């Protein structure tokens, strides 16, 4: 009797290994244009990362004593996390407001968010001079609780966990673990509530990081309200990313998407454009208040002033109007255009606070080296690789297996 059981278990284990081995093999074309571009870049990036660890951060970056944070923090971490904000916004809409319309894109958004955090937090490790000490603030022998960075680091960790739980039913469905799926789905609501709370705090926390750099950031971008501005803009930054990523996935993974979800795609984009227009209006309003509060009229007529106006009118007001028009008139293409302009605007805004406006008056202004850019693309491509790998295997865009509905 027990022999028989063992036998079955062994066979099951064997098949799990076989199953995983089979799933590890590439699916799809090997010589797609994405592979042809990304593989050489990633190879070069890995070489550069090795050089960085052997010879120090200065060997491949243009950072210096005056500008200690550059592209890796300003773009990979600060901008990347803003784009990953879609996950908390959508889980809020679907699980907290119970608006079922967006349910079909929650999984892919959470997956995107989770991977973004994994890779952008990973980029943070590249930027640490002494990464082996990263455990210090985690295991509790040196808690710098007065540090905003301490808060942000912990939130990254906990939020990744929350997102993993939110996503885990998809993994369970993939490997066919029915019991586990049931338990994990039961944890979704708690993870969502926890995750949204964490997101509110660390999206704003990324802005709060720069509060002490009061004398170093251009006054048009520095204010005590950076945390609030970062938080509000993360809403439409995240949703624009959802629109953008959704449109690309719709093309690339078309055959993965169920009939029902293909049909609902336009309705979803339309709804999201409304939310974007609305939150961008609030954001613009806040920016105006912050500007009036700062009383920097004289600075507008400078080079940085023109740049500031470009950001506000070209990349906030314009896409806001486009979102609004496309929402009124159901113009799907226009929504996508507005989303792209918004995303560029977010990149510009985050870089203005963290890199361009930071020590804008330095004798030798910081410009990232080509190697920093290659490493940034390496991180980005690696994330897309994993994303694609998961999409091709787990029920993310496609429907859950039948047994889920039977239960």
């Amino acid at each position, binding site marked *: 009797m027990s022999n028989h059981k063992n036998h079955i278990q062994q066979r099951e284990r064997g098949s799990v290994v076989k199953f995983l081995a089979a799933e590890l093999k590439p699916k799809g074309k090997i010589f797609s244009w994405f592979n042809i571009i990304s593989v050489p870049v990633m190879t070069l990036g890995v070489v550069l990362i090795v050089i960085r660890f052997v010879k120090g951060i200065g060997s491949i970056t243009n950072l210096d*004593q005056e500008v200690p944070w550059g592209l890796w923090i300003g773009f990979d971490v600060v901008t990347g996390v803003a784009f990953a904000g879609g996950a908390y916004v959508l889980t809020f809409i679907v699980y907290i407001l*119970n608006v079922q319309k967006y349910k079909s894109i929650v999984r892919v958004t959470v997956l995107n968010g989770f991977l973004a955090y994994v890779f952008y937090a990973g980029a943070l490790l590249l930027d640490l001079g002494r990464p082996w000490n990263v455990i*210090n*603030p985690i295991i509790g022998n040196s808690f710098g609780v007065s540090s905003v960075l301490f808060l942000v680091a912990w939130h990254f960790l906990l939020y990744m966990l929350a997102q993993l739980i939110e996503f885990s039913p998809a993994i369970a469905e993939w490997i066919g673990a029915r019991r586990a799926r049931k338990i994990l789905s039961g944890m979704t609501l708690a993870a969502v509530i926890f995750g949204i709370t964490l997101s509110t705090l660390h999206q704003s926390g990324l802005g709060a990081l720069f*509060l*002490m750099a009061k*004398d170093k950031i251009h006054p048009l971008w520095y204010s005590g309200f950076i945390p609030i501005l970062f938080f509000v803009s993360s809403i439409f930054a995240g949703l624009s990313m959802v629109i953008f990523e959704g449109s690309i996935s719709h093309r690339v993974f078309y055959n993965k998407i169920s009939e029902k979800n293909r049909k609902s795609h336009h309705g979803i984009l339309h709804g999201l454009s409304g939310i974007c227009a609305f939150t961008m209006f609030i954001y613009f309003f806040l920016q105006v208040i912050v500007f009036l509060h700062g009383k920097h009229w004289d600075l507008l007529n400078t080079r940085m002033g023109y740049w500031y106006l470009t950001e506000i009118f070209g990349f906030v007001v314009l896409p806001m109007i486009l979102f609004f028009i496309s929402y009124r008139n159901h113009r799907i293409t226009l929504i996508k255009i507005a989303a792209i302009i918004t995303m560029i605007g977010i990149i510009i805004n985050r870089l203005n606070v963290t890199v361009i406006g930071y020590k804008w008056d330095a004798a030798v202004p910081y410009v990232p080296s080509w190697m920093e850019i290659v490493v940034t693309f390496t991180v980005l491509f690696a994330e897309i690789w994993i994303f694609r790998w998961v999409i091709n295997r787990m029920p993310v865009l496609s429907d859950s297996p039948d047994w889920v509905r039977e239960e």
Partner: protein
Amino acid sequence: MGVDRRNFLRALGLTGVALGTGKKLGAAESQTDKEDEFYGILYDSTWCAGCQGCEIACAEAHGLTPPEIEDVPEVGKKRVADETRRTVVNAYETSQGEFFVKTQCMQCAQPACASACLTKAMYKTRDGSVIWREEKCMGCRYCMVSCPFDAPKFEYHSSNPKIEKCDMCFDRVKEGKLPACVENCPAEAIKFGNRRELIAEARKRIAEFPGMYHDVIYGEHEAGGTGWLYLSAVPFGELGFNTNIQKKPYPELTKGFLYSVPSVFVLAPAVLLGIHTATKNNNNQDEENE
């Protein structure tokens, strides 16, 4: 300035060791456990001769490289501290003639760097030094971003990089010695002692020689007060100081945000759960898919 005078003073600086040790730590020791009672250094730029004795002594005390012989303070040339030197002296042409100024980490009373550090590697000790602890630091450089004086420097070209900055010779002071620069300043422009007493001393000098000093002690209120205190004959802007430094301590800039965190953690989940329950019944047609 003539190289001869410089070399002379340099030699003097090196022999000044013996001179310095006499006037040791003073009577303030017993009071250092009080919050506002800690060591500081009073630097009188009107006395400084620009000999670089402090630079040399500092480099030797901390195993760094002393300045090159041609690397001297000159008007119009801004030398800056970096990962190879914790302090530098610069020359400025001012409305009252040429003056020298030594710069280094200011040893803030409430340091931005220490409140920024998530590992407590940057740490304000009870006797007033702001020290860096190698075994804790993860090299994130957030201290550099936050310090209003750009004092911490990072070894960008090392696989095991350190943060370099003045720590008011924490180790030497612990042993009862004076900071290296204080001990080796032949002009006696640098005075170590209890911060409160140094402020009184600075005030006395200003009062006694009214024409000689600009009536401000830089560091008394800057960034909420710093351990290093400066006297000067001219407004500090003329000596390359940042005069926009706010008077409130820098950590206060993040206090509002950090204080709001616990309340968000308590309120947000409750509110979210409340909304969830309220909206659940309105749209429960899809419920079984949860």
